[in-house]
């Protein structure tokens, strides 16, 4: 009772996400058109959402009046200075924790305790400690980016392949050579992906930082719009922050491409 030869049935495939170009943009466009329609037709009240075309008009207006840069420049400066301080300190402390048992035992619980403290809660203190001007803004962003950077960095140092370290020792490399040539480059991918999170947090903290005494800045712009219940400007500001986040994440991706070509 031999059957006729038949092809083997196919049962593989799937579970491997395909790139579908354009769908992302389409979703945005559809969403925006829907809101535009809803706000025009009235089934989305003007209290709920602004009309997207008005938001765009506000952005254009902001750009034309030159106010765009007046708001974006101080925010970018705060983000750059604050997160540079936080990230540098965070990497330094993270590497220390990764390398020295004493630093680890002493600092990890401290960082763990610092992590869930909401930065806005400390605003009044920051004003006393660092003044009402740029100081407290830098400090807030620095503190906010510091803890995630520390956690990412020491995780990355821990994950450096220990056989590479043993190899260095077996060739009699100096301690400092091992740290510089093996541990730090090996931790770089982890540090960069931590940077992604830290900078996102930095952007989110811009608003908190600009709560106090900032006349210009995207955060201040958003806060003012919120207090005036001016939804067009509120959303215009949110769009700017959101684009900033996407931009920063793209920049880090470029950096990774450059620095980590050695990854397979």
């Amino acid at each position: 009772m031999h059957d006729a030869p038949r092809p083997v049935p196919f049962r593989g495939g799937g579970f491997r996400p395909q790139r579908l170009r354009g769908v992302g943009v389409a979703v945005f466009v559809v969403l925006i058109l829907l809101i535009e329609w809803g706000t025009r037709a009235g089934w989305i009240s003007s209290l709920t959402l602004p009309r997207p075309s008005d938001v765009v008009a506000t952005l254009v207006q902001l750009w034309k009046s030159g106010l765009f840069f007046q708001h974006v420049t101080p925010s970018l400066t705060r983000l750059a200075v604050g997160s540079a301080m936080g990230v540098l300190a965070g990497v330094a402390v993270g590497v220390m924790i990764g390398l020295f048992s004493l630093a680890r035992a002493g600092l990890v619980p401290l960082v763990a305790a610092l992590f869930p403290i909401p930065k806005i809660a400390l605003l009044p203190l920051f004003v006393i400690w660092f003044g009402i001007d740029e100081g407290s803004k830098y400090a807030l962003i620095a503190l906010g980016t510091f803890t995630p950077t520390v956690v990412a960095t020491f995780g990355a140092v821990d994950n450096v392949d220990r056989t590479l370290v043993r190899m260095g020792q077996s060739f009699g490399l100096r301690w400092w050579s091992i740290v510089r040539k093996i541990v730090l480059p090996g931790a770089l991918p982890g540090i960069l992906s931590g940077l992604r999170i830290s900078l996102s947090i930095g952007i989110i903290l811009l608003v908190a930082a600009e709560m106090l005494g900032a006349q210009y800045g995207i955060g201040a712009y958003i806060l003012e719009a919120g207090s005036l219940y001016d939804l067009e400007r509120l959303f215009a500001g949110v769009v700017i922050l959101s684009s900033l986040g996407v931009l920063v994440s793209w920049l880090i991706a470029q950096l990774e491409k450059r620095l980590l070509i050695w990854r397979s």
Partner: protein
Amino acid sequence: MAHPTILGAGMDLKIEQLSHSYDTVNVLSDISLQVPSGQIMCVVGPSGCGKSTLLRMIGGLERPSAGQVLQSGDVPPDCLNPLTFVFQDFALLPWRSVAGNIELVLEDHPLDGAARAARVADVLARTNLSDFAKALPRQLSGGMKQRVAIARAMAVHPAVMLMDEPLSALDAQTRELLIDDLVGLWMRAPFTAVYVTHNLAEAVRLGHQIVVLSRRPGRVREVMHLSTPLDQRSMADPGLQAAQERLWALMRDEALAADKELAHA
């Protein structure tokens, strides 16, 4: 409890003019082969020549660009999965016990609880794993993990076993032990198998026919037939040694060339 049927009874495989490309890379070219029921076919070839690709196509996990794989003959009624894989890296679910890993492949079939338990107990007994039924994969050595994977494959009473370098993740001594196990299993109940390997010693120990593929794009360079019964093949058998030397002579230059190839940066 004895195994209920002789494995692999009655299913032949025929590979007809099979070719495959990934995008622009030509991987396999015009492969035609036959796997007779109850025999082990070993496939050897240099790295990257498409052995794994070929096996995936035989098992229906990938679609060839051209040609086809045909099965003929009837599948025994208690066979739940005619073409069954054993993977190089065991592919055990780390969160399931040994018995749980075997049950996994029975759960989607209409078996009652008792029948399922009986099958699990049967294959565990045949692979000497009964004591390890409750162990988690992480507690097992590599050799034991691959034994579990073989037990799992046997639990579905396959018509054909498709083995992709099943021993190459193991150390040399465990490899020896498992070759003995496989020979023992085959002697007690001959199964049909396609066995991909890099290891010529393994190929001459286990293969009824040995297919040598060329470098990418893989073509059939030679098919060697060995008639010594599996249980009479030993490490020091001069005939097998000679066969192995001949295979190596055939492949050496290509292996060297494959080794020196730079990956597309």
